[in-house]
């Protein structure tokens, strides 16, 4: 059954991804991209990465794409409809995609751990439970579940704490910039 789901969600991801490029209506494109994200999230979840999968839906499909859709609708972009595809752009896109696919194939074929299926992988949750720092993580591991959200949080805030704060600062700068840019001059109408 898992393999069936894999093919189903791969088909959803790739099929809607193709539609993003080929659809002529911008709203359709945006919605197809959202569907493609949902398929990708399902693939993440089938790899036991529940946290990444849910965040994928929450952030990309639920927030970013809604904003995209919002702007497309507000600007009422209709210029793309009925326009013929731009040939050099199509060729460039295909070439790029082929190069990327080749790269992935070469990298993954040289990755030896990728050849063992998950059920044969030497994965000992009990052993990991003994070495883990936080009691909540080791408790989960002892029961036999993988606490992916907790492990990710631990790694992010412990190992990459500084990087995380740097990114937070960058986002803050971006937000302040937007506020400054969109602030009207004195005497102008109040927003």
């Amino acid at each position: 059954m898992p393999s069936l789901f894999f093919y189903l969600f791969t088909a959803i991801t790739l099929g809607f991804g193709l539609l993003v490029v080929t659809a002529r209506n911008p709203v359709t494109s945006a919605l197809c991209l959202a569907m493609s994200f949902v398929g990708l999230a399902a693939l993440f979840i089938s790899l036991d990465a529940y946290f990444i999968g849910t965040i994928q839906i929450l952030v990309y499909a639920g927030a970013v794409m809604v904003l995209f859709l919002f702007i497309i609708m507000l600007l009422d972009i209709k210029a793309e409809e009925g326009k013929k595809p731009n040939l050099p752009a199509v060729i460039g896109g295909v070439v790029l995609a082929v190069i990327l696919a080749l790269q992935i194939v070469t990298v993954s074929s040289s990755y030896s751990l990728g050849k063992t299926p998950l059920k044969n992988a030497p994965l000992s949750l009990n052993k990991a439970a003994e070495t883990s720092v936080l009691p909540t993580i080791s408790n989960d591991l002892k029961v036999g579940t993988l606490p992916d959200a907790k492990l990710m949080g631990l790694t992010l805030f412990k190992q990459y704490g500084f990087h995380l704060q740097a990114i937070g600062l960058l986002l803050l700068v971006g937000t302040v910039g937007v506020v400054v840019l969109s602030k009207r001059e004195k005497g102008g109408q109040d927003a």
Partner: protein
Amino acid sequence: MAALLASFDIAFLITSVLKIVFLTFLVILPLVAYSVYAERRFSAVIQDRVGPNRTGIPLTLFGFKKDIQILGIGGLVQPLADGLKFFLKEDFTPDSVNKFYYWLAPALTMVPALLTCVVLPFGSELQLSDLNGLLAWAGLPGFTENVKSVIADLNVGPLFIFAIASLGVYGIVLAGWASNSKYPFLGGVRSSAQMISYELSLGLSIIPVLMIFGDLNLSKMAASQDANGWLLLPFWGDSAPWQNGWNFGRWILLVPIFISFCVFTVSMFAETNRLPFDLAECETELVAGYHTEYSSMKFALFFMGEYAAMIIGSGLAVTFFLGGWSIPFAPVLSQLTGLQFHYVPGSTPLLLGLLHIGTFFAKIIVFILFFILIRWSLPRFRFDQLMKLGWLVMFELALANVILTAVIMAWIPIK
């Protein structure tokens, strides 16, 4: 093919399907229908009217003298009559609409609302090994362990609910856009702005809760509240004052928990587009907002989606703050009566399991009545007031609350 079939866990699939059918078709959809009825009766009481009190089983159609009123309460068949009315109305599709998205939008509102219920723990667990004799007679393998009363026991429960609920915006935005008419469009734009803004404070408001539980699994949260007292009512278990001295930290934590409950509830009102925040469909300005152009069952789907979202939201609030399926004072009750009222993993009698399910839905119904009470007692906000409240009050309050909780928890460890 045989290998493929063997990879299916048949018992798991059957119990899951049964749970899905029970929760969505036997509980949530009837609850949606009857919350509409409760809303109409409750609002009538508030406004000193009678409300829908006539619809009974229509025996007068068959020549009898009187319609039967179930339980003597007038109008209990009203939801059925409403549903029938929606089915029989003309399903009108205006010419100017974008047909595909116009049809897609109602489904996109209803489906996420129902989908989120899969991670809600609606009961502790059911000991179905009593049925093993019957199953063995039918030649089927029996139950070896108790069945958990949750469809998918995910370790990212609240995040999953927020993620799927955030997809509900598409339905409203598309309805507004596809209708190709100005009032629906304004309604759709307003609603998506509102939902995106309040999603932030909704997500931030539960971070203190997650910090206190130290877990993202809704079933574990409910179980720990059953043992240690509800988050808003810590009167038994380890945090009770008569147990291991005054557990001071737990009592101070009530302050941030209460703030987070308030922010969560307000954001939930905004997320479900309920009054005082129903700017997306406010009839004095926008006719009916995003569903102006919809009729018959398509309109009903929007309507049901709103109520289903409300039920799931209530379920989430109950699970976070009000103990989920746990019976109040369960360990104390067990001590006093000698019967088991609290949840013990692996040995919970079937009757107690059912009682837990009943408790959960009783709490949800009380919360829905609270939703209705608010709707009929507060006036509607203005849109700029709503956005100001969201960004300048709720968001900051939730953020400060996270820091407050962290400081308290670092100062006085609760465990």
